[in-house]
């Protein structure tokens, strides 16, 4: 019964044979199938609708003149004025926050990944970062208010004549924003460090380098893209955060410096960001200029989109370069 005789050529059929049809599945499977399709399509449609609608409003209202002109004096924005101040405010806040968060996050991640003794302390640090990650931003904002209204921190903001420390300034908001950016930065860096193969460390030790030198010369460069991803994720959260700014960067739309020293006065003073600009111009705030609100919101969304693309690009290039992928956290 061997098949020595050569077989005649036959046509091949591609594709599956008879499949069990959904009509004969159990009713719960049919229900799940139907719902999965309906809801899946609906969510994609909603997501597309949000993006398209914001784009439509942006095209309608966003003008370069708005980006480069300052908001009008006073609170109503109906007639004139753009959002240069809020835009710069967002940039300034982001800078302060990243400058504060970066060393803190990288140092902690390094310590956890490379040293981590005693272990109870390592657990404390990791749990603290998790607590910060899970804390609502409004609570962090209130904490910031508490801290910066202490007399100890009076130089960081405005002190009223009665002696009460105002507690609201760019420094105050920036410091609290750094707490917002801390968890994604820490997680990205720590995961990157953990993913570095043990051989790299062992090779460096075998060459006689101390641990700290290894860190500086070998490990940190290899997690550069992880840190970049973490920074981008953190920045994405910072520019979108409204609660902290609303509480810690009082209701002025334009930059209001505090004191005469140029840069320090700016940092001690108040202002606004794109997010508070949107909030103030919506019916929840003064409500007078929804068109400006749409324009600013669209610009904000474009920034977020750009940051998402950067994260994706970093992830791709790192995967190509090292064969490792970035453990990206979305939150």
């Amino acid at each position, binding site marked *: 019964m061997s098949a020595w005789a050569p077989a005649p050529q*036959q046509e091949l*059929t591609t594709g599956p044979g008879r499949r069990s049809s959904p009509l004969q599945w159990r009713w719960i499977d049919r229900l799940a199938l139907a719902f999965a399709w309906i809801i899946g399509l609906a969510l994609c449609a909603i997501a597309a609708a949000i993006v398209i609608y914001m784009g439509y409003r942006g095209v309608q209202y966003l003008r370069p003149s708005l980006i480069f002109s300052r908001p009008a004096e006073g609170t109503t924005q109906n007639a004139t004025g753009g959002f240069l101040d809020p835009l710069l405010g967002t940039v300034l806040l982001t800078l302060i926050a990243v400058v504060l968060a970066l060393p803190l996050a990288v140092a902690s991640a390094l310590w956890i990944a490379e040293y981590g003794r005693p272990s109870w302390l390592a657990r404390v640090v990791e749990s603290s970062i998790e607590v910060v990650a899970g804390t609502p931003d409004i609570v962090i904002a209130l904490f910031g208010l508490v801290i910066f209204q202490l007399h100890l921190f009076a130089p960081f903001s405005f002190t009223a004549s009665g002696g009460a420390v105002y507690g609201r300034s760019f420094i105050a908001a920036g410091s609290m924003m750094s707490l917002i950016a801390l968890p994604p930065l820490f997680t990205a860096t720590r995961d990157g460090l953990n993913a570095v193969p043990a051989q790299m460390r062992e090779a460096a030790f075998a060459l006689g380098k101390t641990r700290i030198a290894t860190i500086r010369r070998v490990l940190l460069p290899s997690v550069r893209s992880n840190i970049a991803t973490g920074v981008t994720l953190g920045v994405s959260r910072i520019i979108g955060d409204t609660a902290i700014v609303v509480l810690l960067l009082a209701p002025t739309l334009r930059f209001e410096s505090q004191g005469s020293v140029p840069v320090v006065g700016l940092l001690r003073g108040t202002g606004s960001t794109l997010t508070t600009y949107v909030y103030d111009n919506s019916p929840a705030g003064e409500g007078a200029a929804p068109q400006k609100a749409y324009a600013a919101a669209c610009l904000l969304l474009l920034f977020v989109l750009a940051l998402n693309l950067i994260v994706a690009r970093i992830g791709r290039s790192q995967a190509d370069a090292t064969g490792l992928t970035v453990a990206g956290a979305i939150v």
Partner: protein
Amino acid sequence: MTPESMLLEEISPAEARDRDQDRDSGRTRRSPAVPPVRTIVVDRAPLPVAPPDDREAVRPSRGAAGPERLRVEDLRIKFPEREAVKSVSLSIHQGEVLALIGPSGCGKTSLLRSLNRLTELTPGASRGGRILLDGDDIHELEDTKLRARVAMVFQQPNPFPMSIFDNVAFALREQSRKRPRRSELEPLVVDALRRAGLYEEVRDELDKPALRLSGGQQQRLCIARAIAPRPEVLLMDEPCSALDPISTKTIEQLIGELRRELAVVVVTHNLAQAQRIADKVAFMYLGDLVEYGTAADVFHAPRAERTRDYVRGAFG
């Protein structure tokens, strides 16, 4: 010097070197302390390392082969990159174990997977020829119903992340229209576990997670899970290659007992295992079916030279 001491002489390499030199130069020398090297001088027949195992006991006395369950007619399977199976015709009977042997890449696994249409999971697969299950073309049957009658056990044990009971009852629950109660399922589960030779070991722990079992136990659990719905054919893809020798032996015994009620097709790259368990053997090479016959014929009187070479271990 006693005969035993003639067998073994422990000398160090330095001493050996010295001895040679001394022999040449006629001097004797003290040897320094280095680890000794055993040189074994063999002058009698080697002792067997272990007593001969009871290989013959795996296969009980052969009765007549049962009815034909699966017939493969001129099967061709083509994947986008290569042609896996070129024109194979076989017959698989109840009461027999068919072993598919051959070197890696010969198409035996593709052939096995086509028997329950698992090749359809690979995109771009195309086929030709027919496969008949009890006379019905399997591509005309519904795939879920086909797989209820043709069960498969995989190379790596893959018990589901559930309890042992839920694993074995899985197919039973899914294949019935109404939700059967546990009291209805329990005798079937126990019976399947008995037939798979696992019941005695897990009788008190049916609700424990299946992933806690050892490798051999997990594979027997997968066999129990596969035979619980009483399929007609059992396909096994190298079932013992991931297991230790003791589990392997247990499962080979199991296969011998299972073939009474099922037709069994086993893919194996282990020739000794094929010799132990197979009634019929199909030898494939690069997609062609080179030889197909009874185990005695293929192993001891192969007709094709390639078969003879493979069976003797000339290539693998």
